[in-house]
């Protein structure tokens, strides 16, 4: 018996629907069909009139969620792909994100974004949007990397009084399995050290945590011990845990699957450079996807995003500086 990442997300939603009458699910193809990735499989039957199919109207879906939140509900909206949330960008960043600051009325909505690339998905079904949303004040942006985090963080996300961008990694959906959902439950906003080391720190999130661990395994054969920090939440950003790790290692590689200009990795590097300059023994490095749209062909795709090979290469450069 094992639990996949997507099982955890489904389980969390079932728990939420069962325990919180304010929760409802809204999205395309999520009711009887169970969602494009089956994240809501069987929930419509178990919870009649709580799980709704909706028209292909991302902007209106978020608008509806905002309105429902004003009236006391806790909607979970599934974007079929994170990429399509660009259609809802206005409602997310201008309506939901500004609402509490402007009016004092919180907007507790959770927007699930199936994010990141899988082979063959191409430019419009592969994007990582976390950096864009983290740029806006008023949003919480979460990027779970483990099965247990996917479960606990989704439950915590719905409990927050703020709009949450919940970035789920599509590659992890079925690839990532766990024996069970464990109780190792950190609060939202805290990073986790998933591998301990003393020669360099890799700060990663979402699927890149697993790539970083693989790279660290390889480098271990050469005697390098790499510490891997899983941010879990990119906003708020747990810079204390990152700085504490860099304090142990003196070297930093920030790793992300998003496009290279700006974004989460740039934020991590700039915060460490500003607040932990004295901790650095080498220029802090970033490794991101390439600066092109995400390509379709699996061979191109595999070379577009950071891989254990490219992570090892970046780390070797960093380690021999």
């Amino acid at each position, binding site marked *: 018996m094992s639990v996949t990442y997507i099982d955890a997300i489904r389980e969390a939603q079932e728990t939420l629907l069962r325990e919180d009458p304010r929760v409802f699910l809204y999205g395309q193809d999520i009711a009887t069909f169970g969602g494009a990735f089956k994240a809501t499989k069987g929930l419509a039957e178990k919870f009649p009139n709580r799980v709704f199919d909706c028209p292909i109207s991302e902007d209106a879906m978020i608008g509806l969620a905002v309105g429902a939140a004003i009236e006391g509900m806790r909607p979970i909206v599934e974007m079929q792909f994170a990429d399509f949330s660009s259609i809802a960008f206005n409602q997310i960043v201008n309506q939901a994100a500004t609402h509490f600051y402007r009016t004092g009325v919180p907007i507790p909505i959770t927007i699930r974004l199936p994010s990141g690339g899988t082979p063959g998905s191409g430019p419009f079904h592969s994007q990582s949007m976390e950096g864009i949303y983290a740029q806006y004040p008023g949003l919480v942006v979460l990027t779970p990397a483990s099965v247990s985090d996917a479960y606990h963080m989704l439950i915590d996300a719905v409990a927050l009084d703020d709009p949450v961008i919940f970035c789920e990694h599509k590659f992890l959906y079925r690839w990532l399995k766990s024996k069970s959902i464990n109780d190792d439950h950190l609060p939202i906003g805290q990073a986790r050290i998933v591998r301990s080391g003393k*020669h360099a720190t890799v700060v990663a999130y979402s699927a890149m945590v697993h790539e970083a661990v693989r790279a660290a395994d390889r480098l271990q054969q050469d005697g390098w011990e790499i510490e891997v920090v899983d941010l879990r939440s990119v906003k708020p950003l747990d810079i204390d845990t990152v700085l504490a790790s860099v304090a142990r290692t*003196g070297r930093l590689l920030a790793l992300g699957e998003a496009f290279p200009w700006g974004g989460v990795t740039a934020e991590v590097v700039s915060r460490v450079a500003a607040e932990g*300059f*004295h*901790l*650095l*023994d*080498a220029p802090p490095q970033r490794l991101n996807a390439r600066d092109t749209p995400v390509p379709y062909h699996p061979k191109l795709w595999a070379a577009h995003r950071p891989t254990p090979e490219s992570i090892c290469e970046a780390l070797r450069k960093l380690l*021999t*500086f």
Partner: protein
Amino acid sequence: MPTVPILMPQLGESIAEATVIRLGIAVGDAVRTDQEIIEVETNKAVMGVTTLCNGIVSEIKAQEGISYSVGSLLGLLEVAAEEVARTGVDTLESLEAKRSDASTSPAQAEANLHFAIDDADAYEEAPAVVPSVKGLPVPAGTMGAHYISPRMRARMDDLGLREADISAVAGTGAGGRVTVEDLERFLDYLEAWPSTQASPMRLAVADAMRRSWTRPLATVGLPTSLDRVLDHRRTHEPKPGLTLYMLRAFALALTENPATAGYLIGDKVVHPRAFDIGVAVQVEDGVVVPVVRKVDQKPLRELIAEYDDLVDRARRRRLSENDCRGGIATVTNFGTFGLTLGTPIPLPNETLILGIGAGVKKPIWSAQAEVFLPATVAEVFLTFDHRVVDGGGAGLLLKRVAELLQDPSAL
């Protein structure tokens, strides 16, 4: 009666000024609340400036056809106090009060700062500039051996290390730079060696020497006959120390050209205020330098007691801080250790140090007698900060000291 200003409003988000097209009022006119009294034109539209209360026009500052920036005073109204209360308008007096509030409130002061650009031309678009100034040469090996990372710098500060301390560490980083791990390994390696805690005296000397060594120091030397000094000393009671003769000769030579002992700070040479000269005394695990005061103004015999007392207290480590303060140069006699040659280092806050080696019997050619005669000769050295003094100046000073030593009764 309170006075209410008529101000040029901000008529549009990007509007900085507006032109008065028509003044619809004259001094003495009664105006009503919300009456449009001045017609103005922006680059977007034609609009009327309104009044906020009933009143009488007491002054008109604006002229037709002239453009005024937002916030400019266009005119004044005399308004009854009851009317001010009814409408809540700001009067000149209440505005003044708010302004003086603003000058004390940091919040307001900051808000004002953000919009403090008065000069609209400052934002005029300028053509793109081609950089024509030759920049710095780009170092070829930015990651080379001399790079000290922020982490290294912080760790070295922790341990009180200077670059000199890590010169023993072989770097494994890019371009042979010393990484923090190299340093930590080196420190670990040193753990295996016997070590002791350096005494405070040792650390003080080390610090002074390290600081002094940051300057371009040079040394010149001159063989000097000591026979006359030794003869004079033999006949004198109490016997002055050899170093005291040097001290006195050095002071007298310096009085003839005090700038030689000047101290360079930035673009200034700081001159000696008094010819107070230190003398290096070897003590356990270090050197101390008590200062003999006004050496130029006291003959040798008067200096003996003061000198002996200082040296004695130095050896017993009974010097006060004041005893060591304010010297302009130092004399060190390493001849007492039997050494004939040395390159002494001046204190970090002094430009000169005079050193003397051991006297040695040597045959010296006498031009008068045309024969080698035995003489007691010592090498006398002067180390100087080359930023302040050159070889020639230092040489002249040294020669003068040697000359003065040939007439010890005059010292």
